[in-house]
């Protein structure tokens, strides 16, 4: 079949406008398909990671948006003493938007010594000592730094909060790269945070190996049930799923959009290939006269269809992944972010989908071309 590739390429070039339009259409569809796949994979990644299974979030009962949850910081010290708890980290959360957003900026204020202990961060620029020494210093996730064009030493403001970028990190969990970590006390004392000293938004619990997470949730809530402020404790995964619940429904629905994109590529490539075959009825008859078997004609048309589809897939998927990598997009709600994934698996899925679709779209035209009667086709205009 390799020997015939120049012939296939020249045929595509012969109707270059039609080929280009079909490739563009397929590319746009695969661009959307990859975006949908990216956010779906991001959602799946949200609850992955060893720490998520061992982590609990203690929140104020009957509160949803982080800005309304106010727990005494003292709770963290009480919880740290409970058997089965390895770490209890008080966290103050501040963000630019409590609702669903594509540009959510979330600050997590926590004690500096705890940050390195409970978060698996890899510093790509800046240093920890500057962060630890400087009161307004912030560690910024690489995705957010890209999105907001931040570099070391930059001052960055959201509302009345201004921080200085001391480090940029990558994280095992891509969603963490949309966060900004800063000192707890700095966030508690920021202008506009009335009576915030001594209070935190949530407490993150790291359980000791072998501890039953659900039982621990019940124990914690029971402990504070009679106090002034009750708690609502859940495993971190459950907490995150509840926070992005509305988004999960939307993202779940978006997979139909993905199917629609694949169907669009199928229709586009199928129509173009059929048109190409109808234009070349006599040419295929000539090839058969020269000794091309029907299987070879079938293969030639199939490869032509595959080439168009795959080219569109490479362009669309490649462009989507390049933009997602460059922009570091994330969608979030109530302080929890879902990072758009850019894993190689998405590229493989995109290319596999376009390959299958390309072959499927070519079957009917290829069969039409291959099984046509030679003498009758030679008479066609």
């Amino acid at each position, binding site marked *: 079949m390799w*020997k*015939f590739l*120049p*012939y296939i390429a*020249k*045929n595509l*070039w*012969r109707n270059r406008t039609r080929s280009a339009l079909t490739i563009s259409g397929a590319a746009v569809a695969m661009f959307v398909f990859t975006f949908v796949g990216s956010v779906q994979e991001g959602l799946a990644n949200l609850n992955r990671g060893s720490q998520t299974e061992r982590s609990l979030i203690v929140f104020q009962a009957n509160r949803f948006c982080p800005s309304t949850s106010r727990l005494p910081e003292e709770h963290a010290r009480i919880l740290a003493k409970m058997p089965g708890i390895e770490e209890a980290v008080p966290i103050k959360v501040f963000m630019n938007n409590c609702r669903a957003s594509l540009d959510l900026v979330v600050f997590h204020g926590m004690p500096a010594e705890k940050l390195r202990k409970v978060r698996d961060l890899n510093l790509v620029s800046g240093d920890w000592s500057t962060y630890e020494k400087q009161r307004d210093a912030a560690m910024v996730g690489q995705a957010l730094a890209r999105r907001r064009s931040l570099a070391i030493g930059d001052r960055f403001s959201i509302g009345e909060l201004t921080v200085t970028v001391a480090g940029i990190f990558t994280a095992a969990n891509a969603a963490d790269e949309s966060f900004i970590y800063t000192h707890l006390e700095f966030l508690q004392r920021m202008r506009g945070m009335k009576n915030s000293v001594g209070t935190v938004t949530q407490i993150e619990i790291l359980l000791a190996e072998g501890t039953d997470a659900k039982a621990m949730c019940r124990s914690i809530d029971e402990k504070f049930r009679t106090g002034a402020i009750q708690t609502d404790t859940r495993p971190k995964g459950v907490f995150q799923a509840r926070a992005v619940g509305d988004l999960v429904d939307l993202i779940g629905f978006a997979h139909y959009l993905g199917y629609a994109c694949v169907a669009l590529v199928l229709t586009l490539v199928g129509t173009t290939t059929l048109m190409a075959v109808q234009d070349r009825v*006599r*040419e295929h008859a*000539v*090839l*058969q*006269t*020269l*000794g*091309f*078997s*029907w*299987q*070879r004609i079938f293969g030639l048309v199939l490869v032509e269809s595959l080439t168009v589809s795959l080219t569109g897939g490479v362009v669309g998927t490649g462009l989507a992944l390049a933009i997602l990598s460059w922009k570091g997009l994330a969608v979030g709600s109530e302080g929890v972010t879902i990072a758009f994934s850019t894993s190689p698996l998405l590229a493989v899925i995109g290319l596999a989908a376009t390959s299958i679709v390309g072959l499927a779209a070519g079957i009917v035209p290829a069969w039409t071309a291959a099984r046509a009667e*030679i*003498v009758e086709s*030679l008479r066609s205009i």
Partner: protein
Amino acid sequence: MPLVEIHGLTKEYHKGDQKIVPLRDASLAIDKGDFVSLMGASGSGKSTLLNLIAGIDRPTSGTIHVAGTDIASLTRTQLAHWRARNVGYIFQLYNLIPVLTAYENIELPLLLLPLARAERQKRVEIALAAVGLTDRADHYPRQLSGGQEQRVGIARAIVGDPAVVVADEPTGDLDAETSEQILHLLQRLNAELGTTLLMVTHDPKSASIARRQLRLDKGVLLEPEPPKVALAARGA
């Protein structure tokens, strides 16, 4: 033994309720190296006979042996492979592939044969030289005159050194002067390369250059030369 041997060949097809018989009980033998012209009016069945011998159509009844193969018994795929090795076809309307150069058009049938690139190149160059188009190798069909296109078509037909070359009205779309050049070229290929040629034409002048002239009238071969010796040898 004749190179082409047909016996009792009939072709029928239906058009609505009407039964059409373009070829009726034809028998014919063509020896290797022969140059046969087949004359007849439009609808006389000459192209049908040509297509049957070339293996691109199937008879309703009768036998066709070409180069020792009973081609009527081959499957569609076997027939395609057989055509690639044994038949060169010259079309009236040239039927070159428009996206390929003259060189690539001529090379096309060779791609189906187990030949190395260098061998293919050598054969194409010889074929181009034989039709006098060495300097037009890189030209596309749209850059060639009708006569030149037909020469490329002839080169494509002979490049694989097939057992038989069939030509369906090869000068039907050309002016008189170019027609004469093409006919002279066919005559030369037959004489110098020993190519076995079967040419369909409705023009008596064109037919006259062949060594043997046959005529078809309403599906009946009027001047058949029944291959008595060969058929007897087969027990027919």
